[in-house]
């Protein structure tokens, strides 16, 4: 049996080698199909991982709470109408919900940042020290501010990489320097390590952190003391996120005295939910890829079927001879199936090669990240085998069902 399969493969290769152009053209469908799928899946996987990295820059097990404007009877209230989120809310959450490990808050504004004769207009965040921890910010030099800085409303600042690049000379050490934010002098005590783009696509490194209290008392000129732009909390375990989010909602609704039908005056988002939204996008992409893959494999398969039908007709006499000397139906069936498989598998392998090459080129030329996983390659290979078997079956069966006498007489 092994000798039979082996010799049949050799025969198949010889037959295909004799009609190289024809075999090549036949394989084209499979080559293009498999190649395109490999390339696009690699690009898709690369993009997915990039997004996952961005989601990871949010921190670990983070829940965000934003104020949302009240809607009364479906009509949105005027912007900035009411103060809906405060430091007191954040402290209450920490007190009432034990599974929260950290609670932080921030207030945001865009301001002019000046160092000597250089200036930069960028976002300035007044944050609690825990906010820096929750967001997993690390430092390329210096360090964070402390609870004491917070309580004394110290004029200290942490600079993001983009801000450093814009207001300092290359090589100049920012830590220790005095900068001015809205004309208030601040001492730089830390430079943040770069995080890159956020999930929303904004530059996370274009930021200056100052203590929350300093911001509200000395820089921003906030109308209502204690009003915050957002509360960030984190949990120890990822599994607790959903539960924590629900508890937060209950506590907040109670604090804000919202009854029955009244909608929340805040928005809660967990890191997991944001991840899911991104996954949804990549799922759409996957479905589209599947469609492209199916269509091209279908076309490739039909090509194989077509050429095999031609081959069966051309070699009817040979089939007759083989049957005359004792080939059973199954022998003939296997012979043509192997021929179909050879076409599809060789085509598939060439396609895989082209796909990998295309992915590499995409990375080199366009700079997009690509990931070629062995799973993708394996699936592509299996698919080419399946296509060969499926589309080879009809012609092979047709050959196997020939009557030996008719086949021998065929001109």
């Amino acid at each position, binding site marked *: 049996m092994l000798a039979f399969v082996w010799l049949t493969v050799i025969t198949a290769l010889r037959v295909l080698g004799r009609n190289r152009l024809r075999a090549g053209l036949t394989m084209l469908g499979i080559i293009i199909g498999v190649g395109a799928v490999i390339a696009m899946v690699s690009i898709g996987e690369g993009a997915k991982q990039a997004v996952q990295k961005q989601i990871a820059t949010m921190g670990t097990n983070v829940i965000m709470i934003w104020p949302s404007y009240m809607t009364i009877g479906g009509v949105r209230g005027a912007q900035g109408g009411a103060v809906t989120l405060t430091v007191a809310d954040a402290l209450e959450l920490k007190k009432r919900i034990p599974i929260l490990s950290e609670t932080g808050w921030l207030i945001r504004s865009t301001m002019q940042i000046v160092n000597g004769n250089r200036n930069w207009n960028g976002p300035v965040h007044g944050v609690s020290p825990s906010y820096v921890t929750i967001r997993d910010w690390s430092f390329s030099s210096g360090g964070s501010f402390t609870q004491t800085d917070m309580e004394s409303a110290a004029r200290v600042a942490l600079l993001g990489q983009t801000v450093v690049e814009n207001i300092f000379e290359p090589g100049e050490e920012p830590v220790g320097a005095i900068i001015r934010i809205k004309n208030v002098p601040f001492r730089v005590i830390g430079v943040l390590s770069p995080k890159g783009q956020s999930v929303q696509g904004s530059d996370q490194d274009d930021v200056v952190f100052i203590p929350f209290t300093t911001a509200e008392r000395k820089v921003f000129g906030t109308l209502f003391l204690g009003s915050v732009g957002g509360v960030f909390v984190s949990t120890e375990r990822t599994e607790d996120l959903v539960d924590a989010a629900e508890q937060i909602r209950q506590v907040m609704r109670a604090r804000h005295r919202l009854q029955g039908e009244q909608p929340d005056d805040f928005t809660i988002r967990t890191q997991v939910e944001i991840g899911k939204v991104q996954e949804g996008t990549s799922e759409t992409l996957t479905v589209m890829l599947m469609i492209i893959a199916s269509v091209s494999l279908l076309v490739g398969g039909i090509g194989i079927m077509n050429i095999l039908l031609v081959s069966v007709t051309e070699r009817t006499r040979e089939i007759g001879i083989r049957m005359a000397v*004792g080939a*059973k139906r199954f*022998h003939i069936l296997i012979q043509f199936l192997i021929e179909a498989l050879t076409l599809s598998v060789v085509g598939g392998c060439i396609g895989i090669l082209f796909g990998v090459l295309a992915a590499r080129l995409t990375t080199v030329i366009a700079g997009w990240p690509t990931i070629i996983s062995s799973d993708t390659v394996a699936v592509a290979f299996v698919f080419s085998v399946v296509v060969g078997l499926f589309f080879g079956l009809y012609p092979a069966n047709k050959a196997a069902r020939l009557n030996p006498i008719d086949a021998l007489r065929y001109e």
Partner: protein
Amino acid sequence: MNPLIVGEDIWKVYRVGDVEVQALRGVSVTIEQGEFVAIMGSSGSGKSTLMNILGCLDQPTKGQYRLNGVEVGQLRPDQLAEIRNQQIGFVFQSFNLIPRTSALENAQLPLFYRGLSLKEQRTLASAALQRVGLKGREHHSPTQLSGGQQQRVAIARALVTSPSLLLADEPTGNLDTESSQDIMGILEGLNRDGMTVILVTHEVDIAAYASREIVVKDGQILSDRATKGRSQVVGA
């Protein structure tokens, strides 16, 4: 011992559109192991049809055919293939070698379907080629061989399994006199070694090699007689 071939009232009817062609009309024939039979008759008389049925390539429309005591008429295609592989060797007028495939591989073919190892296939096929005088031509493809040589490859392929029955349908029909003599010499030798040989021919001097002559006319046996046989003449 049972006769090798017992055919009883064999009919073969072809249907072409609305027309019915009765290629065989009640042929009964018995052939013993080791016989050398020549079948003669005019074109269209049904000789090839009969050979195909005897060779299990085809089945009778009506009647019985027993080969080595086995009723062939009811067998399925794969069982017929098995019988052809185990017991029968074919030689055709048009050689019927597989194109672009070496003499050795052509001769190996029946062994290939018997599932022998590649080595056994090669050894037996080489021996068969040597037997028909083609030593040294193993790797020639059909187009690199003369008609006579091609027919010898076909004979090597037929005898490689040591079948009990060798069927040759006008084996010399496409050959010149000299090649024909060579081919007949080989068949004669095989018959002398005990193989049953049935041969279809139009030529009297080819038929003269056989020891029995059956004449077919319009799908029926017209005459069936023993001839003195050339081998006996040569042997005497």
